[in-house]
């Protein structure tokens, strides 16, 4: 199994989720995160004080998937999340040793 983690633009979340559903990924977990990278942030000015807000709001999406689905899943994310402008985000793939479903205790691919 793999844990696929994608950092994407917030407004792309619905598209990515739909794309994943297409390739058969039925569950995901998302987190609101802030990202720092090439995409530059913005400046805020409060009375005299100027603050550079370097961190940009992003969504982190995690999906545990069976080996077999990993590539399709990555492609689906890349496609759905792309705008072509700096800041589109990343996809990370990590090995997942085990997965369990709390409700039933099922393990491995069955748990996903």
């Amino acid at each position, binding site marked *: 199994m793999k844990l696929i983690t994608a950092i994407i633009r917030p*407004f792309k979340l*619905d598209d990515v989720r739909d794309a994943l559903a297409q390739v058969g990924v039925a569950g995901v977990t998302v987190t609101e995160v802030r990202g720092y990278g090439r995409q530059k942030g*913005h*400046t*805020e*000015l*409060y009375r005299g004080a100027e603050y550079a*807000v370097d961190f940009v709001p992003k969504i982190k999406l995690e999906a545990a998937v069976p080996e077999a689905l990993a590539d399709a899943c990555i492609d689906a994310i890349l496609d759905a999340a792309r705008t072509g402008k700096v800041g589109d985000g990343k996809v990370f793939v990590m090995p997942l040793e085990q997965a369990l479903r709390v409700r039933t205790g099922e393990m491995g691919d069955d748990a996903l």
Partner: protein
Amino acid sequence: MKPVFLRKMGAAVALAAFVLLPGAACAAQPDKGDTAWMLVSTALVLLMAVPALALFYGGLVRSKNMLSVLMQVFVVFSLVSVLWFAYGYSIAFTGGNAFFGGFDRVFLRGIADPARGEWALVSTFSKGVSMYEIVFAAFQATFAAITCSLIVGSLVERIRFSALLVFVVVWFTLAYLPIAHMVWFWPGPDAYTDAAGAEALNASAGYIWQMGALDFAGGTVVHVNAGVAGLVGAFLLGKRLGFGREALRPHSLTMTMIGASLLWFGWFGFNAGSALEANGGAALAFLNTYVATACAVLSWTFGEWLLKGKPSMLGAASGAVAGLVAITPAAGNVGIGGAFAIGAIGGLVCLWGVTGLKRRIPADDSLDVFGVHALGGITGALLTGIFNSPALGGPGSVTDWVTGATGYPGIAAQLLTQAKAVGLTVVWSALVAALAYKIADWTVGLRVNEEHEREGLDIHSHGESAYDY
């Protein structure tokens, strides 16, 4: 009480400045109770705009656009207030023709001579009862300013800030001012001393006033007027990105509820203050405002519960506003039974306005300025015509200002008059609004660009974020 709508004797006609001797008994001098009431009422209407309306609207947008909405209301309110004192008051409330007033009171000149302790006075609706013209001008300023602020609700989350300001200057000048003049300008009761002069005096009033249309506190001038201008804007601006696809959820219904509550509170100044005195007429307008709003909260809540399965807080708050809008033209023009009916009906009509009707209008009137304000205003204006009838507990209206005799032309006739007033307002406001948006578009561009809209107007237009928890 003279159970009619508004306003002051034309400056050119009968404006008189009295020397105010403190403590001296002078019949024509404003009553202190009236002055206290009108100052409070004026402050209450200001409260309705900032923060009430700003919060009511702001809570409904996404958090990335919160400040932009607050800012739009805050600055539009301030800008229109300044324009009002600069030239608006003069155009709306001094004599001219039936559509526009004159320039006698530009920058309020002549309204007071502090060095000599002299204050210009204007008539109320009661013969022999006057008020400080300063107070009248300030009270009316808040009406002009909140009307323009109302329009913001149709344009949020995408309009360019500078475009909004350009639009407002044009629309205020060419739509608000003439319509206020048409509806509310008249010579005042004290001018009517004998039957001979009455005809001429009548003819010096605003066009819609002459028609005999009733609008106690601004159903047409404020709500229909703004609601139509909003809808036109929604058409011309286009829909928000993601409209109909993404969830454009309110970011804080708590703020919306605070806004609605403060609107209710402030509206007592708006409606009961429009009596211009702390008299029985004000008391009636006050009670009617209370009753109608409570009824509209219930009718919307139960209506939504029945039709949609759950009664929502946004529904209850919207119901309150719907009731307030609907009772506005009626407040002092109908009896208590009328207020029950107008509130209950107003709530249901606007519920339909933001659900049923809205689906058929291919525009993103984002915060339902049309569905609530225009529709509620029209409903109220028409029902005013009906419940004004003495047969239905209403006061009728003064038919002869020399004797103070009242009458009622019959439901059909009054309804027709009301409909004409509404129709004229709708057309006038729509045309001027279209022009004003076009001017804004040509000069500064109406809408922000896509990235700007996507990331939020707060950061891009104003360089701030509303929240950092």
